[in-house]
């Protein structure tokens, strides 16, 4: 794993995510699409009905977040990642359609990790309690669909060096498992 940050431009190609490994520190620049629970439910419904999607997932990275309101002069209010597992039942639908990355926090299901391996997608972790810092990496924010969902509307974010870590790479690596095993000890053991 690389401790020196790897700088990536989004949209990403499959070849762009292939070199990434669990534990790599990455800075994302370019586009992120903010979407969370209600947004994903609606996207799944649109897929089911054969209706157009709010954005083409090919090459894109989804950020699981619902920002707080922005103070005047800020592009976006505080926006840390929310728990990704709530999107587990929906994520494979986007991964099958070329989604290359997801930014969130917390464990993903086996189905999601299988889809990532099969289609070439990476799951990045961000730190929720750094929401104010993360918002500073967002230079522009625009609601592109589902405005009625408020904090859950689809937002297109232009980000600069957005700090993330690779949790699940395309090869079955899992930082949450590997990190825990590396640092687990017996009580009383120094």
């Amino acid at each position: 794993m690389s401790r020196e940050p790897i700088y990536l431009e989004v949209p990403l190609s499959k070849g762009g995510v292939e070199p990434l490994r669990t534990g790599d520190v990455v800075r994302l620049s370019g586009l992120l699409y903010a979407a969370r629970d209600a947004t994903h439910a609606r996207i799944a419904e649109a897929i089911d009905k054969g209706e157009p999607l709010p954005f083409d997932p090919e090459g894109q990275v989804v950020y699981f977040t619902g920002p707080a309101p922005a103070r005047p002069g800020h592009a976006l209010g505080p926006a840390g990642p929310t728990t990704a597992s709530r999107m587990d039942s929906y994520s494979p639908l986007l991964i099958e359609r070329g989604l290359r990355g997801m930014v969130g926090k917390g464990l993903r299901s086996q189905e999601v990790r299988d889809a990532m391996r099969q289609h070439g997608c990476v799951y990045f972790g961000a730190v929720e309690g750094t929401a104010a810092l993360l918002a500073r990496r967002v230079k522009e924010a625009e609601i592109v669909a589902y405005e009625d969902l408020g904090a859950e509307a689809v937002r297109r974010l232009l980000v600069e060096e957005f700090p993330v870590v690779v949790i699940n790479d395309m090869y079955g690596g899992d930082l949450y498992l590997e990190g825990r095993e590396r640092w687990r000890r017996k009580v009383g053991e120094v």
Partner: protein
Amino acid sequence: MREVRVEDVTQAVSDLCIEANTRLPAGHLRALREGLEREESPLGREVIERLLENAEVAERECIAFCQDTGYAVFFAEVGTEVRFVGGELAEAIDEGVRRGYDEGYLRKSIVRSPIERTNTGDNTPAIVYYDLVPGDGLKLTMLVKGAGCDNMSALRMLTPAEGLTEMKRFVVETIERAGPNASPPLTVGVGIGGPFEKAAQLAKKALTRPSGEPNPDPELARIEEELLEEINATGIGPAGYGGRVTALAVHVESFPTHIAAFPVAVNLDCHSHRTASAEL
């Protein structure tokens, strides 16, 4: 009887909402700094450093340090010699939440019903637990409760035979299961005793105790220490990336219970641990 104007309650609640969401409590900041000294994992250290930096930026710019500005939970200690004038106490608290979440640029995260999920639009209703106490004081303690960590909380009705050993196992198991989802380093609230709902309420109230302040009961204080050591041996670490610091504090609260019961509730709070209190 002392008269308290409900408008003053509303203003105090509004101020608490903004303060709690933009300024980490001193005890929690201290616990984070001490955690940074103990943490050996490079990624774990990086996470704690960024959390501290985020807290500085949030306070300086008066913005929320986490976008999930949560449920507005209040523990109200109401003196029996207080009379409220100008309106109802519960409405005054809701009005304060409405005002604070609007003026503080805080996210409105409450939906009308778990089934029909329309946002109430102003983060009300507040969740208020009232305690009648002697005297003419009024104390409001706010806990901003994010959902990510609340979702990973758990309650179990143990038997007296299972006892303390099983209680401790259940607390650690709850944290193992939560893993990264609850956004560690955690503050862990544990409630034991009472009937079913009392344990849950105690677990929540335990989170409002200043970070790391031990329970005055030496037996419970010892259990808190032992649990903290076991939790930090799990290796989950800051943000779940692996490390020594999975929890910053464990607070246990106990209440009498039934001869047939040993309820235990575990309420987790994430690294954005938010409390504030005011007296009127």
